[in-house]
């Protein structure tokens, strides 16, 4: 139903580019989205699962988690992008008429993502992921300058190619299932699949799952297939970057998780995919240290850190112990919130200082004190410093590493995290203090602090995790690990 909302909204956007009209329509759409989505989530969590439209749409705890992430961040980001895009228009970066296209693509994007998390079908999920790529391509290239187009081009080419492998994988899965469940759509439905998982032809399934993980992995941005990610995330308008980093990556990961949880039940054994995930995650983590230490562009910095966090998530899920998966699920939520907030605040910063070069941004505390405060919070949260929630999630992922006795891996992971922390701290200290170099010195009001809400949530979750959330996460763990 909220998919419908999104689609309608998307179409609706095209009619007029008046500020008031867009604001109104967006707000309405957001309210509807929140209501229907929230209701669905509640249903799902209370009943364990919830289906709609004769089982064509189906949610369990995992989908609910993703759904909530999507909705929360979407509301936050879209509300922010009102002011942001208006500012862009005022600064003649964009013609006003393009605004409607902006919102059109945003909402199409939303629709595809909602489709991804609402369908119980491996095939449809592929369609949805591919859809997200297409929907965001033009958003990435929205400024239509050389760099933007370059980024968009790399983005679409790499992702489409990558994804097509996932399709191949899906076909192989279908081939292995068809003899058991018949040539019907429901053969790819993961309400059915677990029942026959143990009888799947391992040769087909193995090949399929390999293709699928690589394919979706390219979309998640596992190193070394991450190359498109920093370009796309740094060239897109900041709200879009926020959506890409905080939501889209998670959706792609969600697709992998579905395969993963299926693979755990097959004759391949629980650790087959887990190992692949962990190695991808570890590689991403290790490589990102370099990119983050020597980084000149602040938005690229954030993009690379997204890759890093995807790596952490991959490790967490790949470990497959209860604790680690719990932590990873929590981390998925927290990273989404943090990264969205950071991209939003950095977007604002870039807008005010007019540069993305870290070396040119100085003395934020003098010029934009409140932005400075939020950036400090963001820095601490993204680097997993206590008392922020990310610390807790990372600790439980790491302890998973230790419990499955990889103490050396665990040590290295902590070491990499620390190096990354050092890099972040260095860049942020450079930007926060010193002499403000920018010519114009915009003052700002305390209302800016309202932007920090997600971070405050993360902070709160670091200090105390409410019962309900814990239960929800435990359900997620059950879904992924298959009735552990």
């Amino acid at each position, binding site marked *: 139903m909220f998919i419908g909302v999104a689609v309608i909204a998307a179409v609706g956007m095209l009619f007029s580019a008046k500020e008031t009209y867009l604001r109104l329509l967006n707000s309405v759409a957001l309210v509807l989205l929140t209501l229907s989505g929230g209701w669905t989530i509640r249903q799902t969590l209370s009943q364990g699962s919830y289906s709609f439209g004769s089982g064509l749409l189906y949610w369990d705890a995992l989908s609910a988690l993703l759904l909530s992430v999507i909705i929360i961040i979407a509301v936050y980001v879209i509300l922010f992008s009102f002011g942001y895009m208006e500012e862009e228009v005022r600064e003649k970066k964009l013609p006003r008429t393009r605004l409607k296209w902006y919102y059109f693509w945003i909402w199409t994007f939303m629709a595809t993502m909602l489709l991804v998390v609402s369908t119980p079908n491996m*095939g449809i999920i592929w369609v949805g992921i591919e859809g997200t790529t297409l929907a965001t391509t033009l958003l990435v290239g929205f400024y239509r300058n050389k760099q933007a187009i370059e980024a968009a081009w790399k983005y679409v080419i790499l992702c489409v*190619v990558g994804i097509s492998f996932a399709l191949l994988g899906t076909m192989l899965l279908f081939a292995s299932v068809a003899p058991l469940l018949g040539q019907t759509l429901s053969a790819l439905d993961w309400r059915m699949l677990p029942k026959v998982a143990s009888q799947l032809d391992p040769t087909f399934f193995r090949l399929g799952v390999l293709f699928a993980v690589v394919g979706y992995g390219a979309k998640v941005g596992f190193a070394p297939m991450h190359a498109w990610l920093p370009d796309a995330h740094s060239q897109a308008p900041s709200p879009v970057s926020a959506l890409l980093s905080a939501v889209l990556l998670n959706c792609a990961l969600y697709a992998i998780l579905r395969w993963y949880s299926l693979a755990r039940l097959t004759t391949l054994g629980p650790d087959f995919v887990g190992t692949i995930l962990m190695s991808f995650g570890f590689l991403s983590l290790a490589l990102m240290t370099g990119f983050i230490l020597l980084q000149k562009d602040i938005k690229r910095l954030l993009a690379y850190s997204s890759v890093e966090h995807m790596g952490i998530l991959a490790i967490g899920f790949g470990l497959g112990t209860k604790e680690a998966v719990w932590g990873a699920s929590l981390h998925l939520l927290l990273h989404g919130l943090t990264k969205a907030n950071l991209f939003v605040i950095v977007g604002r910063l870039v807008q005010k200082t007019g540069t993305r070069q870290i070396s040119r941004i100085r003395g934020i505390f003098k010029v934009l004190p409140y932005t400075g405060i939020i950036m400090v919070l963001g820095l601490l949260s993204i680097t997993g410093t206590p008392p922020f929630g990310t610390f807790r999630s990372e600790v439980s992922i790491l302890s998973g590493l230790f419990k499955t006795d990889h103490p050396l891996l665990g040590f290295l992971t902590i070491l990499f995290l620390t190096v990354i922390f050092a890099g972040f701290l260095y860049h942020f200290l450079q930007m926060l203090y010193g002499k403000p170099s920018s010519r114009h010195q915009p003052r700002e009001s305390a209302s800016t602090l309202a932007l920090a809400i997600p971070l405050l949530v993360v902070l709160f979750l670091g200090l105390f995790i409410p019962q309900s959330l814990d239960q929800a996460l435990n359900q997620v763990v059950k879904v992924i690990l298959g009735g552990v």
Partner: protein
Amino acid sequence: MSWWTLQTVFVSLLLIAEGFHNNALEVIIFGVLLLIAKAGIIPILLRRVLKESNTEWVGEIYLKRAMSLIFAGGLSLMAYEVTQPLMALHSGYRNGLAVAIALIFYGLLLMMTRKVAIVQVLGILLIDNGIFLAGFFLTQGMPLLVELGAAFDILVGIVIIGILSKQMLENYDSLNVDHMRSLKG
């Protein structure tokens, strides 16, 4: 280019034939749609873009022909190697699958070696064909919904890439991907 069109025609005809073979209507319809879309619309669109771009595209390659042939050979070996264990398939289909996967690899290789944007699009389409071929050999066609979605996605994708390449022309006035190296590190 035209070679590719031919290939597409062939693939979709294969589908239709298959459809008649186990008289499944949707497969036929789908095959026809595919024929129209790929053999009709896309080539035209690409040609349009090409006309606007006055890029002559001979020899804008990274690898020497010989090298790329060697690579291709290696990749097709790989494809066979990968598909051999699939015992459930009878051998003809298995080899067909191998061909299909090899086709996908060729597409990737093509995209890697050529500099002109359009060729990369061709590469994508090549991969696409490969996948459909594979789908044909594996399971006589996926569920319709998925097939449709996939085809639709590809179509939209091509359209969007077309738009992009127009914009690329506006900015770089050439379709040479090699100009786009500003985003590093």
